[in-house]
């Protein structure tokens, strides 16, 4: 056997051994362990606000830390900043490229970031009288699918070029590159201490990274399709992913594997987005079939549905105080529910 074949065999053997090691710690399942827990109440949140303003598909939304402002991005080429409780528009940012895929606020909400098919992440200062483009982070070879601020001066991106990037906003340069995925990177989530982050990609894998040295620390398999959404559980030890394979899955980093799968009885729509309630007990997931399902994250049961959109739910978000959940859709509307 050539050297290549020997190495391939070694890699495969290691992977099999890892699977065995993972199975060895499965002394129970999450469902079995939570069988004694009282079921979460079946909730029927009502739509408290419908925010109309976009004129085309909404692709992304993001809550500010003040729990009042929310920004949304749409293919109509605009970012709209909403004063959600008052139900009115607070700001409008026109974009150079209408093909926006991601939006986010900086911690102070003075900056918004957007990214998309232009392969760039654009940072706009909205704290002044008029929105002013501050930076155009150019360096990815593929679309920017997700962007998350670490601070007012640092941002993380996920790209269709199969890499994630950490950027310094003062120099506009990429500080760190994260290479390991073999498919387009679709989503990222930052750990609270900002020392690590997780990513989901079209190679069906989720990965844990060290921000400072750029190394992939752990890889998680289980999904059979693109991972479109990812979010940490509030305890910071586990995370949930949503995929085109119509399932959501919970992975625990200490157990180093998938611990739960959330699947409709008839799985016929991919998951586009997800958000977790403050305690982590409730999981809100947006689907291609225009609904947002509510799952009991511990027991794996569906306990409610948010239906009201006339097209795909493309994004969801829960503010940091957990008071409500917002959904954005291809029908051009945003709804706020509780």
């Amino acid at each position, binding site marked *: 056997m050539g050297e290549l074949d020997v190495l391939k065999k070694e890699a495969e053997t290691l992977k099999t051994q890892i699977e065995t090691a993972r199975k060895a710690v499965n002394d129970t399942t999450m469902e079995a362990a939570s069988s004694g827990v009282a079921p979460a109440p079946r909730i029927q949140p009502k739509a408290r606000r419908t925010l109309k303003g976009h004129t085309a598909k909404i692709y992304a939304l993001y809550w500010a830390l003040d729990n009042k402002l929310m920004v949304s991005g749409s293919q109509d080429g605009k970012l709209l900043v909403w004063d959600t409780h008052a139900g009115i528009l607070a700001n409008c940012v026109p974009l150079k490229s209408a093909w926006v895929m991601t939006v986010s606020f900086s911690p102070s909400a003075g900056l918004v970031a957007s990214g998309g098919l232009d392969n760039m992440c654009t940072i706009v200062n909205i704290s002044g009288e008029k929105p002013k483009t501050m930076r155009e982070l150019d360096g990815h070879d593929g679309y920017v699918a997700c962007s998350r601020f670490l601070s007012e001066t640092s941002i993380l991106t996920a790209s269709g070029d199969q890499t994630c990037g950490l950027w310094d906003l003062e120099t506009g340069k990429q500080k760190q590159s994260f290479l390991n995925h073999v498919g387009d990177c679709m989503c990222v989530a930052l750990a609270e201490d900002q020392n690590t982050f997780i990513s989901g990609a079209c190679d069906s894998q989720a990965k844990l990274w060290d921000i400072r040295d750029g190394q992939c620390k752990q890889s998680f398999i289980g999904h059979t399709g693109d991972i479109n959404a990812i979010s940490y559980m509030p305890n910071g030890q586990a995370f949930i992913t949503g995929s085109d394979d119509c399932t959501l899955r919970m992975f625990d980093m200490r157990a180093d594997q998938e611990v739960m799968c959330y699947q409709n009885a008839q799985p016929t729509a991919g998951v586009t987005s997800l958000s977790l309630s403050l*305690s982590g007990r409730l999981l809100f997931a947006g689907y291609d079939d225009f609904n947002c399902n509510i799952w009991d*994250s511990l027991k794996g049961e569906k306990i409610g549905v948010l239906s009201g959109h006339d097209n795909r739910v493309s994004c969801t978000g829960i503010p940091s105080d957990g008071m409500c959940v917002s959904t954005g859709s291809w029908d051009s509307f945003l709804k706020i529910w509780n």
Partner: protein
Amino acid sequence: MAQTNNLQNTNGEADDSPNMLVYRKMEDVIARMQEEKNGIPIRTVKSFLSKIPSVFSGSDIVQWMLKNLSIEDQVEALHLGTLMAAHGYFFPISDHVLTLKDDNTFYRFQTPYFWPSNCWEPENTDYAVYLCKRTMQNKARLELADYEAESLARLQRAFARKWEFIFMQAEAQAKVDKKRDKIERKILDSQERAFWDVHRPVPGCVNTTEVDIKKSSRMKNPHKTRKSVYGLQNDIRSHSPTHTPAPEAKQPTVEELQEQIKFWQAQLDRHRLKMSKVAESLLCYTEQYVEYDPFLATPDPSNPWNTDDATFWEQEASKEPGQQRVKRWGFGIDEVLKDPAGREQFLKFLESEFSSENLRFWLAVQELKRRPIREVPTRVQEIWQEFLASGAPSAINVDSKSYAKTTQNVKDPGRYAFEDAQEHIYKLMKSDSYSRFIRSSAYQELLQAKKKSALIQGRRTSFEKFSRSVKSKNLF
């Protein structure tokens, strides 16, 4: 729980269009619906002087679903059924709008040739041929709807120069259709129309063939896409999909494999926690925080989204933290450090004990990480002088290893110069200062005292609410 994914080549990239997974699942259900024995009963219905071949009613579909799929109720069945109709797997024979109704509306199955899993992207020239052909046929049921007539007019303008060619194609197609058996024609005509209802939907209806822009830019196999329905364009595919060779999978290099092996070895060596422990900690966490989760416990005094009363937010912003918020600080040091009011109280307590240097150092380092880069070197020096240099006014106690590393870092100062020291101090605070704080009378008072004022606040709030409602009703 790992599953082998036979949709992926060795590179791990999915070979198919993004919706393929969903199409396959729907087709599984369709296959069961079409089973001879346990499927939906298909029949020919006599109507006036003609027969309606190969149909079943909307109720038939709903009943079948309730019986054969793990579906809870009629609403879910209609939802799933409408989804499948919108993708074109079955369709109402007398309506362009593809939804499922639980009544006697007649439906028909779509022929596999037209299934979305064949990656159709029909051209406008084909649509033109189709509409043109419809106008040539003398049947009431084939009359164009308003939106179709408009589309035809638009296409005539767009393809003005090659209209003669399109017309000829339409004539040829019409001729072929005429030769078919009457019953067969009815079925095929309706299936063809349903195909176009999916790809050129009625204005206002969702186009289910629309693909997310993130996915459309990575359609890997353009040669698998079928663009021509009536053989007009050069169909790039010369043979069927099963005979089309898959693209060459990229072979990993020796270096890449060695890297991979290093990674997998490190993974193998990692410690894994038992599932029971993982579940226990997760259950514990969710239970502890359930009272803070507005979806599971009503916030005090109310959820501003529910009642339009913003008191909750006002309380959160005020300098006086409520009892529930103070209680949360007791869950762990991170809760105290996360909450500005918590940090303030913690600092106050430590200052009263003259042991606040650890917390002040930790806060300074956190703030340093958010500074603009040009201010970092100066700030690093300031922090070093204040906390770590010999004779520092707020000297902190760091282990020798971290101290040595920090001394080095300070020579070439960056945002993370104090990482090791900060981690050491954090652990110290967690085990020492934090537990003293929680046991302190200062903290306990906060915990208790708020109960009293909460009562007063409660009364005040309801009076405020009353006076506000009175004002809004203009009673005074």
